[in-house]
């Protein structure tokens, strides 16, 4: 067994092992589809939201509060907030992936928009709940 060291392949890893993790993370379809489903939801919720706001144009404080406190309005408002922030994160993620090419900045922004979106959803939902429950 006198094999010269120079004859040995430098990398003993199986080519498949080397390729793994460098390709698709298999999350693409989920992202794409969720963006479409939230979009479909936002067609309805967005139009409803515009109508709600137009109805509140000249409402005083008590009327505005009473309107938001109505069960259907409260439920749809929370649904609107969750769907809007979710859709926004998916969209902004693509923008960041496309334009931010420094890896640490990219990851920082990706995490930052998710933190902000979760805070936004929680704050918005809590505000609606406080109004709906009269707290």
């Amino acid at each position, binding site marked *: 067994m006198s094999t010269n060291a120079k004859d040995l392949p430098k990398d003993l890893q199986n080519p498949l092992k080397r390729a793994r993790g460098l390709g698709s993370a298999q999350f693409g379809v989920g992202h794409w589809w969720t963006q479409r489903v939230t979009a479909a939801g936002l*067609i309805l919720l967005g139009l409803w939201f515009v109508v709600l706001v137009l109805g509140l144009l000249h409402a005083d404080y008590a009327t505005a*509060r009473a309107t938001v406190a109505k069960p259907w309005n409260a439920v749809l408002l929370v649904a609107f907030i969750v769907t809007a922030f979710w859709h926004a994160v998916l969209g902004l993620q693509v*923008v960041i992936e496309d334009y931010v*090419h420094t890896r640490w900045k990219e990851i920082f922004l990706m995490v930052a928009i998710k933190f902000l979106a979760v805070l*936004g959803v929680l704050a*918005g939902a809590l505000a609606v709940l406080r109004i709906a429950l009269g707290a």
Partner: protein
Amino acid sequence: MAQTQRPLSPHLQIYKWQVQMVTSILHRATGIALAVGTLMVLWGLLSLAAGEDAFNQFKVCTGSPLGMILMIGWTWALFYHLCNGIRHLIQDAGAGYAIAQFVRSSWLSIVISLVLTLLVWAYVLTAGGAA
């Protein structure tokens, strides 16, 4: 990415402007604007929950000239992203890819979004001044 000097593919300034380039770019731009706009919705809800003073302050800000300009901008951004979003959903289903249809639906997104914005703000202003 930036370190390697490779020939670049022709970018925007090479091409003659076409409406479907504009709709594509606007979809992204209005999307970013609307993401910021959700924070405005949030402010309105938080102020409504906080109390009458906070809510009145919110109304003063949105009713100010700058506030109105922003609101008109967000109204159009919402309607444009909505119209063009529906257009994209139809295209995702595989329809509307013939060049003539593609161009026509681009114009439709722009025109309908402008008409809806006009209608909404005509209503806002005739219903007795905003805020």
